[in-house]
C-alpha cells in the first residue's frame, strides 16, 4: 500500500471515532486521533492478523495501555474487518460493553482491559515472557502515552523486559507532549526518554507518528534481540486542524456545528 492508501484508511477511522464520540457526547477524541496512524500501521502492515483464526495460539497481540483512546481501537478493528460497523453504534450505550476504556473481549480483538495508566506494559511483558518460555512466535505490542510514562510501573516493566531480553516485545509511545493538565514537558519532562529506554536495554527508534511509511520502515529496521520501543512524535487531535495540539480535546465533545465541520474535513480526505 502507498502512503495515500494508509491515509484514507486513517481518515475513515477518524470519521468513525468522531461519530462515536459525538453520538455518545463523550471525551478523549484528541487522544484517539493521536494514535490512529500508529494503529493503521500496526493492523494493516506490521502485525500479523489472521481474521479466519483470530484466537490462533501464535497470533500477534496488541494491548492498548492508554485505554482512554478506546474509540481509536474499536474503529481500527472494525475497519480491519474484525466485526461489522453496526457494533460501533453501541459505543457508550448503557448495557453494552463498549466502554470509554477498553474491556477485555468486549469486541473481537480486544485482548486486555485497560483504563488505569501504567498497567499495559507489565502485562505485555508477561505475555512476551510466556511466549518466550514456550518457544512460541507471538509478538506483543503495547501502546502507551507519553504522560502515561510518569507511572513507575512502566519503568518496572521496562527494566524487567530489558534484563530478560524480551525481543518479542514492542512498546509504542504516543508522544504528543500533552497530558491531563497541560504540556508533558512542563509537567514532568520526559523528552529525552529514549536514553532511559536505551539504558534499560531496549532498542529505540524515534519517528513521525503520523507518517505511515516511516513508522512501517522503523518496525522493519528493528534488528536486535532486545525489546523494542518506538517513540512516535504525534499531535493530539491530529486530523482536524483546529483540534490539533489542544488539551481541551482531551475533555470536550464536539458541538453539532463542530461535528459537521470535522466531518467535512475528514470526509474530504477519504
Amino acid at each position, binding site marked *: 500500500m502507498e502512503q495515500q492508501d494508509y491515509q484514507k484508511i486513517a481518515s475513515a477511522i477518524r470519521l468513525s471515532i468522531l461519530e462515536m464520540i459525538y453520538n455518545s457526547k463523550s471525551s478523549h477524541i484528541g487522544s484517539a486521533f493521536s494514535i490512529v496512524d500508529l494503529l493503521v500501521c500496526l493492523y494493516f502492515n506490521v502485525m500479523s492478523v489472521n481474521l479466519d483464526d483470530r484466537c490462533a495460539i501464535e497470533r500477534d497481540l496488541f494491548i492498548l495501555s492508554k485505554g482512554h483512546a478506546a474509540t481509536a481501537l474499536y474503529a481500527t478493528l472494525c475497519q480491519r474487518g474484525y466485526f461489522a460497523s453496526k457494533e460501533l453504534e453501541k459505543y457508550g450505550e448503557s448495557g453494552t460493553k463498549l466502554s470509554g476504556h477498553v474491556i477485555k473481549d468486549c469486541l473481537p480483538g480486544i485482548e486486555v482491559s485497560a483504563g488505569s495508566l501504567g*498497567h499495559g506494559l*507489565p*502485562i505485555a511483558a*508477561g505475555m512476551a*515472557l510466556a511466549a518466550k518460555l*514456550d518457544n512460541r512466535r507471538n509478538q506483543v505490542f503495547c501502546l502507551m502515552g507519553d504522560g502515561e510514562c510518569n507511572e513507575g*510501573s512502566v519503568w*518496572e*516493566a521496562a527494566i*524487567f523486559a530489558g534484563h530478560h531480553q524480551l525481543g518479542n516485545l514492542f512498546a509504542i509511545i504516543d508522544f504528543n507532549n500533552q497530558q491531563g493538565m497541560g504540556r508533558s514537558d512542563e509537567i514532568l519532562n520526559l523528552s529525552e526518554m529514549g536514553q532511559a529506554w536505551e539504558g534499560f536495554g531496549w532498542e529505540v527508534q524515534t519517528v513521525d507518528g503520523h507518517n505511515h511509511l516511516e513508522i512501517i520502515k522503523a518496525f522493519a529496521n528493528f534488528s536486535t534481540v532486545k525489546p523494542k520501543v518506538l517513540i512516535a512524535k504525534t499531535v493530539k487531535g491530529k486530523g482536524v486542524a483546529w483540534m490539533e495540539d489542544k488539551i481541551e480535546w482531551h475533555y470536550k465533545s464536539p458541538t453539532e456545528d463542530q461535528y459537521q465541520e470535522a466531518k467535512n474535513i475528514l470526509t474530504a480526505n477519504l
Partner: protein
Amino acid sequence: MRNTTINEILQLAKSDPNIILMTADLGYSVMEKFIEELPRQFINVGIAEQNMIGLAAGLALMGKKVIVYTIVPFATMRCFEQIRVDLCYQNLDVKIIGVGGGYAYGTLGTTHYAIEDLAIMRSLPNMKVFAPADAIEAKEIVPLLLSLPGPGYLRLNRGGEINIHPTTQLKLQLGQGIDMTPSAEILLIATGNILQNAVAAIKQLESENIKIQLVSQPFLKPIDRDWLVAKLSGKKYIFTVEEHSVIGGLGSLIAELIAEAGLHVRLKRLGVNDEYFSTIGKQDYMRDLAGISTEKIVEQIKQYV
C-alpha cells in the same frame, strides 16, 4: 507454614509445567529447593510488585497458572490496583501468597505488619481469601486454592509455627470452618495463626469452668453461609479473634452474617482496634498490645460472659 506451602506448590508444579512461581525478591532460604528442582518455572522479578502482578496477568492470559509470593503488605497493598484491575477485573488465574500475616514480622515494625489485608482482599470481586492457622491447614488449603479458577489470596503467618491441630488428617470443605471442640453456648471463631492463642485461651477458661466452643475459619471468601449461620445460631455469646483490624476481616464477616440472618446474639470482635502502634515488639508482645494474646483473649471473654 511457609515451607509447607512452597513444598506443596513444588509438588503440584512438578506435574504441571504451566505453573510459574514468582517472587519480588523475597523468599531467601524458602525458595531454594523449588529453584533447584524447577528453575524454568521460577522467576524473581526484582523488587517491583506492581510489575510482578502485571507480569502474572500477562502470563495467565497466555495460559500459565501463576503464583506470586512476597511479604503481605508488598503483596497486597503496594500493588493493590494491579490486583484489582489486572487480576480481579479480568478474573485471571493468579494466586497471591502473602507471608507475615498480622504481626509475624515482629520487630521489623509497622511497614512489615499486615492488619488490613483481609479487609481489602475481601472487598475485591472474584478474589478468594484464605488464612490457614498452621502448616496442617496450609497443606490442605494450598492444593484447594490452586484448584479454584480466578484470583486468590493466601495469608500465611511466617515459618516455624507449632502445629495447632492434633491431627494431620483434616477434612476441609470449601467455605466451612473446622470444629476444634464440641458445641457450647459461647462460640469463639478464629482465623489464621491466632488460633494458637484461641486454643490456649479456651483451655484456661475451661479450667475456670467456662466452656467455649472453638471453630477455626480459614476461609474468609468464599464462605459456606448456611454452614456458618447454623454454627452461629442458638448461641448466647459469639467472639471472633483475628490478628487483623477489627474492621473488614473475620469479625466484620461474622457481624454481617449475624445481622443478615436476624440472629439475636451478642458479638464481640477481638482484633486490632483501628490503630497503628508506635512501639514494636516480638509477635507475642504485639498480640498482647492488640488485646489478642492468650491472656487478653481470656480477659476479654470473661468481661462479657
